[in-house]
C-alpha cells in the first residue's frame, strides 16, 4: 500500500508564480526517497505540503489512503504527531537541554514520564548522543545539533520522516554520518523523504531519486 500519493498536485503562493505544477507520484511504505533539484525547484514546497504547513492549491494529496489536502486545522497537530520533520537549521530550542528538546513531541502527547525517559534515551542512543542529554544546544557542534534534531523527529516513532536539506550546514563526513542514520531508520521500516541537492550523498545513498525542475517532476529513477 502506498504511503504518499500525489495526483495533479499544485501549489501557487499568493502573488507569485506556480511553485509546484501537476505533481504525480507515489511513495510506498518503507521507501528511502531523495528529492533533488536546484534551488527554487519546489523541493521545500513539496515537503511543506506533506507536513501541511501549506495547503495545495489544486490536486489530491493522500497519506496512508486518506486525503489530507482539506484536513481541518484542528486535526493538523494530530497528523503532525505521526510525522518526523528535520530541518536544515535543526530548530532546537536554545533554553532547553538536549533531553527536553527531544522529549518535546512526547510531552505534547501527554506521554507518561517513564515512557518519555525510555524513548528519549533510546532516540539519543540511536544518534549517539546519550552522554549529551544534559547539554544545551549551544554546547554542541553543528553535527551534534543536527543529530539531536533527528532524535526529536524519530522519538515519536513516526511512519514518515521528512528531511529538508538536513546536511546543508555540514561537512561531507558529518553529512554521510547523518545519511547513515536515515538509512538505519529506513531499514526498520520508516519511510524517509530527503530533500537535498548534494549529489555525492545522492550517489552514495539514494535508492530512488525524484528530480524537480521549476516546480515540475522531471524524473523519477531508482538506483
Amino acid at each position, binding site marked *: 500500500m502506498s504511503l504518499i500519493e500525489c495526483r495533479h498536485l499544485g501549489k501557487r503562493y499568493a502573488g507569485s508564480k506556480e511553485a509546484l505544477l501537476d505533481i504525480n507520484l507515489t511513495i510506498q511504505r518503507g521507501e528511502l526517497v531523495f528529492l533533488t533539484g536546484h534551488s527554487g525547484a519546489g523541493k521545500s514546497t513539496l515537503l511543506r505540503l506533506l*507536513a501541511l*504547513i501549506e495547503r495545495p492549491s489544486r490536486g489530491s494529496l493522500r497519506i496512508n489512503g486518506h486525503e489530507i489536502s482539506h484536513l481541518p486545522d*484542528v486535526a493538523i*497537530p*494530530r*497528523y*503532525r*504527531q*505521526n*510525522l518526523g*520533520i528535520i530541518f536544515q537549521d535543526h*530548530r532546537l*530550542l536554545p533554553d532547553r537541554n538536549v533531553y527536553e528538546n527531544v522529549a*518535546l*513531541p512526547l*510531552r*505534547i*502527547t*501527554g*506521554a*507518561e*514520564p517513564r515512557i518519555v525517559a525510555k524513548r528519549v534515551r533510546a532516540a539519543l542512543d540511536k544518534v549517539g548522543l546519550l552522554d549529551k542529554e544534559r547539554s544545551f544546544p549551544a554546547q554542541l557542534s553543528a553535527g551534534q545539533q543536527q543529530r539531536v534534531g533527528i532524535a*526529536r523527529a524519530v522519538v*515519536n516513532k513516526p511512519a514518515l520522516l521528512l528531511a529538508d536539506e538536513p546536511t546543508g550546514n555540514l561537512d561531507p563526513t558529518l553529512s554521510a554520518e547523518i545519511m547513515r542514520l536515515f538509512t538505519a531508520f529506513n531499514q526498520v521500516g520508516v519511510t524517509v523523504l530527503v530533500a537535498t541537492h548534494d549529489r555525492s550523498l545522492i550517489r552514495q545513498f539514494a535508492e530512488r531519486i525524484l528530480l524537480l525542475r521549476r516546480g515540475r517532476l522531471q524524473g523519477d529513477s531508482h538506483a
Partner: protein
Amino acid sequence: MRKRWPVLTRQGFKALLRQHRDALLVSLTHLLKHPVTTVLTLGAIAISLALPGVLYLLTTHVNAAFSGWDNRQMSVFLEPGSDTQAVSMVTEQIQALGSIARIETITPEQGKASLQASADLQTALATLEDNPLPTVLVVHPDVSLRSAAELESLAARIAALPGVDDLLLDQAWLEKVSATLQGFQRLSIVVAICFGALVILVIHIGLRIELLQRREEVTVTKLVGGSDLYMQRPFNYIAAMYGFLGASLALLLIKLIVWWLSPQLAALNELYGSHFQLRIPLRFAVTLIVATSFISLLSTSVSMKILLKQIRP
C-alpha cells in the same frame, strides 16, 4: 446524521492530566522566573481593582447608613426670641394639623451645647455675647404619610403657621445625598469597567510580547504536533493566577485604605449619629476574585487564539 463525540479513554484522561500538570508547572516557573514582570502586572491589576472597589464599598455603605435614617423628619425653625409660650403654641398648632408622630424641641441652649460638643466651635461660639440660635422643633410625621407630595403639603402648612421662621425638610437633602451616592456608585462601576478593559489590554500586550519572544518555540511546537490549545494552556494558567492573585492583592489594598479611612468614618458616625462600619463583605470579596480570574482567563484565551493563529511555521 448524529454527531459522534470523541470518547475520552482512561489513558487519554491521564495524558490530559499530565499535560495540565506540565502547563501548571511551566506557568508557575514563568511567574517565578520573571518576578519584576509578575509584581508589576499584579500591582497594575490590584490598583485597577482597588480604586473602584473602595469607591463602590464606600458609596454602598454610606447609602445604606443614610437609608436607615428617618428621612421624613423636618426641622422647623421658630422666629428668634420665641418664648416658652410661643413654642408651646406652635407645637400645639402643628399637632392639630394631624399625622404627627412626635415633636422634639431643641432650645437655643441645647443647640449651642450640641454645636460646642460636636463641631469644635467653642472658640467661635464663645466670642458671641448672645445665643443667635433659634428654637427648633423636629417634627416626625407618622407612618400614614408616605409620599413626598404628602410630606411637602404638611411642610407647607407648618411653614405658614405664625411664629415659624423657616422649615427644612430633611428628606430633600437626604434624597440629594442619596442620588449623589448612587451617581458615585455608578461611576465606580464605570471606572471598574474602564480599568478592567485597561487590565485586559495590558495582559494582551504582555502576551503578544511574550509570544513574539517565544515565536521560535511556538513554531517548533506547532511543527512537532503541538496544538494551539496545548500552547495556550500555560498562558491560561498564568492568566488565572494573575486574576486570582491580583484580586487578592486588591482586597488587601482595599482593607488598607479602609483602615486608613477609619478615623474619618468614625468622625462621620459621631456627627450624624450613625453606626455604620466599612467592611469588605464576603460576597464582594468572592465575586471580585472569581470575576477577575474568569475575565482574565477568558480574555487571555481569546487573545491567545488570535495571536497563535498569526504565527505560522
